[in-house]
Structure formats: C-alpha cells, structure tokens
C-alpha cells in the first residue's frame, strides 16, 4: 500500500449537494407516489410501498457493486483511498439492505400474509446483508491497516458473488417475490414517482458513500501518521519511590 502522504485531506461539496438534491427528489417523488399516483389494480394502496422499496433495492445492489469495484482497485492499485471508499460503500450497502428487508417485510404482510418467508429472493438478500456485515466486523478486528485492506477486499470479492444471485433469483427459481420491475412491467402512471425516488436514493447513496469515505480517510490518516519522536513526548513525572 502507498504511504499516508498519498492520502490528502478530503474536501469538496459533493456530499452536501448530492445529499440535498437527493432528499428533495425523494420527498417530491414520495409525495407523488403517496397522493398523486393511482392505486394498483390488485394490491390497492399497499403497492405504494414500491416507490421506496424498489429504489432501495437497486441502490443497495449498486452500493455493493461499487464496493466490488473498490475491492478490485485495492488489490490492483494498493491505494488507500479505494480502501476508504470500499469501507464506505459496504456500510451504505448494509444500511440500504437492512432497510430493504424491513420494507419488504412490511409489504409482505398484507400481500403474502407473512412477514418473512425463506423464498430464494429473500434468502439470498439475507445472505448478502449478513455477508457484508461480516466484512465490516472483520475490518473492526484487524488492527494492521494493510492486512485489513487486503483481507476485506478479498472478502468483498467473495461476498459479491451473492449479488447476481439476488438479482436473478426470481428468474432462476420459483419465488413468491415478483419479477424485477422495469418500464415494461410497470404501468406508465407509476413511472414518475418510481424514477424520482430511484434518482433521489441514488443521489443520497452517492452522498452517504462520499461522506463515509471522508470519515474513513480521516481515521486512516491518523492511523498511518508516524508516532511523535521521543524528544517530543511529554516529560514523565519522576517516580516517588513507593511512599505509600
């Protein structure tokens, strides 16, 4: 890995601009989804959960895909910045996946009659969530930054194998979960709120990853900075010779 000098202090307005825009877009899209869009023919009003559930699913998988790309770049380039982005993308992906599972459970109860089922889509999603939680735990337990970067990059490449399984599970196996939503499978009145929320969550994901990578970068700078020289250490008080 390169030295800490190659880790400049993070700057720039990206997280604040993307976060503000994403929040505004998500709020507007949710308003349209809740109050303007028509109810679905069979699911009625419950289908309105789609406007937050589907964007969360897309962006959770995007965050893990970005983490996978970061892992490859860590292994190939050995640059600390990609390690910080890897940590950030995994954490944001985990938050979105956990949210995805909760939203899915809330939608499953009125439509399937259960909160959870060990169906291929749900099971592969749970595996994805816990695999990446495991990588965050691994990063906590390894003190050496170089080993931590290399091990978590390898673990990410392995864990990412589950992401295509999540996506294709509804096509490859019999699943309670419906097929992927596309413009062809979703009626046109539903397009606008779905797209607005998809871009809103995408911008929020970019903002979160960018800000979390800055946190990781600041921590790593401190970790990699050389210890102060002995002459700069504060003088110790002389021993008192055990007067007690």
């Amino acid at each position, binding site marked *: 890995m390169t030295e800490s000098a190659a880790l400049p*202090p993070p700057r720039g307005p990206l997280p604040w601009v993307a*976060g503000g825009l994403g929040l505004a877009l*998500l709020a507007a899209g*949710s308003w349209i989804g*809740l109050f303007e869009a028509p109810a679905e*023919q*069979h*699911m*009625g*009003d*419950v289908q*309105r*959960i789609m406007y*937050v*559930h589907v964007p*969360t699913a897309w962006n959770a998988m995007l965050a893990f895909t970005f983490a996978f790309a970061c892992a490859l770049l860590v292994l190939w380039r050995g640059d600390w910045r990609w390690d910080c982005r890897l940590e950030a993308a995994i954490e944001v992906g985990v*938050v979105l996946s*956990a*949210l995805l599972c*909760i*939203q899915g459970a*809330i*939608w499953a*109860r*009125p*439509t399937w009659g259960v909160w959870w089922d060990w169906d291929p889509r749900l099971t592969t999603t749970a595996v994805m969530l816990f695999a990446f939680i495991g990588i965050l735990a691994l990063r906590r337990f390894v003190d050496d930054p170089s080993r931590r970067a290399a091990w978590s990059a390898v673990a990410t490449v392995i864990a990412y194998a589950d992401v295509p399984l999540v996506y294709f599970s509804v096509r490859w196996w019999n699943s309670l979960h419906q097929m992927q939503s596309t413009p062809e499978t979703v009626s046109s009145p539903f397009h606008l709120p779905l797209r607005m929320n998809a871009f809103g969550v995408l911008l*929020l994901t970019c*903002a*979160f990853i960018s*800000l*979390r990578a*800055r*946190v990781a970068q*600041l*921590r790593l*700078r*401190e970790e990699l*900075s050389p210890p*102060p020289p002995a002459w*700069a250490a504060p003088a110790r008080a002389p021993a008192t010779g055990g007067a007690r």
Partner: protein
Amino acid sequence: MNAPSGVIEGGWEYVWAAYAVTAVILLGYAASLIARYSAERRKAARGEKGAIEVLS
C-alpha cells in the same frame, strides 16, 4: 356469500409504516454520518495543532 375479489383493501397503515421506517433510517444514518465526520475533523484539527506546537 361473496367470493373474494383478490384485491387488497385498505393497508394504508403498512404504507405509512414503510415510509416512516425509510425516513427514520435514512435521516438517522445521515445524522450519524455528519456527527462522525464532525468528530473526526475536530480530532484531526487537534492533532495538527498539537504537531505544530511540538515543532515550534
């Protein structure tokens, strides 16, 4: 006896629950990130200030 229509009636409580959970988790995570970023920046600023004092 009426046959079931196959259409889900009502269910707004589930819709509100899903949107509320989404808002709480996304805003809560955003707040936690801003707090962590501010704390790390303060720590880094203290470290740099300390290093300058040692060198001067």
